[in-house]
């Protein structure tokens, strides 16, 4: 008598074997579930998403033009109005967060600053990621002269005081046509990329060096996979997790560098509003009117804390062993 044998599902097989089976989940899903359970990381993510939305919808949210110190009827707006919660005689109900020393609306400037910060966080880090991955993977996989050159460049760049190098790039190229592109933003992207790509390349190189000796790479090579395929399908995904953690710390790092440079007066060019520029401009009147400085400083603190919580959470979720 011929019996029809049907393939058992995973669950049925598990019942047969009397073990608890769970639906197969990828490592990435595991990491995601660990991340979701981390309250601090989720709070950080929430704040970051909120700031992202504010940045994207800035033109719809900002009540006034961030660079235009006049009211709708063309009169000079009140200068240094206090925010409405200050309860002083200098409060102006039209300006919820007050105005700065030129009469520009602080709330609108804060909102547009979020936009600049987001761009400064994302674009340089993307450049760093692409360049770092390419150089690092090639250097780690092939070794040879690519590796030698990378290591020599690393020696030089690691001896550079970071901030000093950024300062020099800013100070020397700021007044050229290139330094004017995007109100000085393009130069900041390039400067950040030059200073930071080496770290990312080193990270990838180290990962690839240890991964390429593993059995699964040997197996792939044994069945005739090309170098390109091994690098893109086997090495890249396996080395991705630490790089993602580095990216999650790189974004606030880039934002912070912009804020610091702008605070020193050699970052983004006015009248563009960024938190650093606002602090720089407000500092002149800090002792009599603290709000134009305190509010952007507060925004920087919140965003930096959120990114740290998210970054720590990501690190713990992606690799529980990496805990520091």
């Amino acid at each position: 008598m011929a019996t029809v044998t049907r393939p058992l599902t995973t669950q049925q097989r598990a019942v047969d074997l009397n073990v608890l089976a769970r639906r197969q989940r990828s490592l990435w899903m595991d990491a995601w579930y660990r991340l979701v359970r981390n309250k601090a990381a989720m709070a950080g993510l929430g704040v970051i998403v909120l700031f992202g939305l504010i940045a994207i919808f800035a033109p719809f949210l900002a009540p006034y033009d961030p660079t235009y110190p006049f009211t709708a009827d063309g009169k000079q707006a009140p200068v240094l109005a206090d925010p409405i919660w200050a309860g002083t005689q200098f409060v102006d109900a039209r300006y919820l967060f007050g105005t700065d020393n030129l009469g520009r609306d602080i709330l609108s400037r804060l909102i547009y600053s979020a936009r600049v910060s987001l761009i400064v966080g994302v674009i340089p880090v993307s450049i760093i990621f692409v360049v770092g991955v390419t150089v690092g993977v090639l250097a780690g996989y092939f070794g040879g002269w690519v590796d030698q050159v990378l290591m020599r460049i690393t020696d030089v760049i690691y001896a550079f005081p970071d901030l000093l190098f950024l300062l020099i790039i800013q100070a020397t190229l700021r007044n050229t046509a290139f330094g004017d592109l995007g109100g000085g933003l393009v130069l900041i992207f390039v400067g950040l990329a030059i200073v930071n790509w080496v770290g990312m390349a080193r990270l990838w190189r180290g990962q690839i060096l240890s991964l390429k000796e593993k059995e699964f790479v040997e197996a792939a090579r044994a069945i005739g996979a090309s170098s390109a395929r091994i690098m893109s399908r086997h090495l890249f995904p396996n080395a991705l997790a630490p790089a993602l953690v580095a990216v999650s710390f790189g974004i606030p790092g880039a934002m912070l560098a912009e804020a610091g440079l702008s605070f020193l007066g050699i970052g983004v060019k006015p009248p563009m509003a960024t938190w650093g520029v606002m602090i720089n401009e407000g500092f002149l009147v800090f002792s009599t009117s603290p709000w134009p400085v305190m509010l952007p400083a507060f925004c920087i603190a919140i965003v930096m804390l959120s990114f740290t919580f998210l970054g720590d959470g990501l690190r713990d979720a992606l690799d529980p062993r990496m805990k520091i």
Partner: protein
Amino acid sequence: MARYVIRRVLLMIPTLFFIALIIFTLAHLAPGSPFDKNENRPLPEATVARLNSLYGIDKPIHEQFLLYLGNLARFDLGSSLVKDRTVADIIGSEWPVSAQLGIQATLLALAISLPLGVISALKQNTIIDYGSLLFATIGRTIPNFVIGIFAIYIFGVTIRQIPALSGLALPFVGWGNGCGPLPSCDVKRMLLPTVILGLGEMALLTRITRASMLEAIRQDYVRTARSKGLREQSVIVAHVIKNAMIPVATIIGPATAGLITGAFIIETLFNIPGMGREFILSVNRRDYPLIMGVYMLSAGLIVVANLTVDLVYGMLDPRIKLAK
């Protein structure tokens, strides 16, 4: 060992050469000359030409660079183009201020972070531990100029307005102007900048001390020490702390070099006449020799600090072999 040291010292030369080359090129790429500052009353062309030839700026850039290297080899940093002083003289008068600030901040950071890290590792997962972790997270996350702004607001502005507390208010204009090293200067003036500058390193060292202690506690030699009946106190002091300090010691060198050279933002925020502030001013004035001088000194300090760390590491931890 001697061969290793010699090799490392010789390797510093090409590194410093490339740094000099890059910074020299960048500094000279900047548009404009140091003598065209006043646009309304330009200097006569003949005067500018004479000044240029006096300082050698009219020569081709590679010739200027070789000239500079030649002087550098004789420890001659040249003269400032703006002030009537030599670069060595300017650095000699500004650098002690930065060094004092940096050393004070480092000592403060060590005095607080080492005990804090040790205690929080010994009392892992208690309220003390969480408290110090929270402090470490905030300290490494929120940029020091933002914390500095909050601190100035609280200690410099708000407290001053409350009559009962006004005696606690701190000046925030920095030192200098006849206010020399510690005994002759009002300690109050140094308090805020020192604490704020030290916070970042304090947080970093707390984290590293704690992690390194936790690592050391789990080692086999600690179990051996306990099982042979040593008192808990001597286990902790002689076995755990002694070993846990090795990674900490390696961080202190470069962190201090960074503090001594890189307190740009804090010096600007508190208006302290140190090298950081001088550097930013010289960059804006295109004072090439001064830019180069400050930069080469900083890079030199960092290179030496890195080398010292590698050597000290080998001495502290006999398991590490230096000579290849």
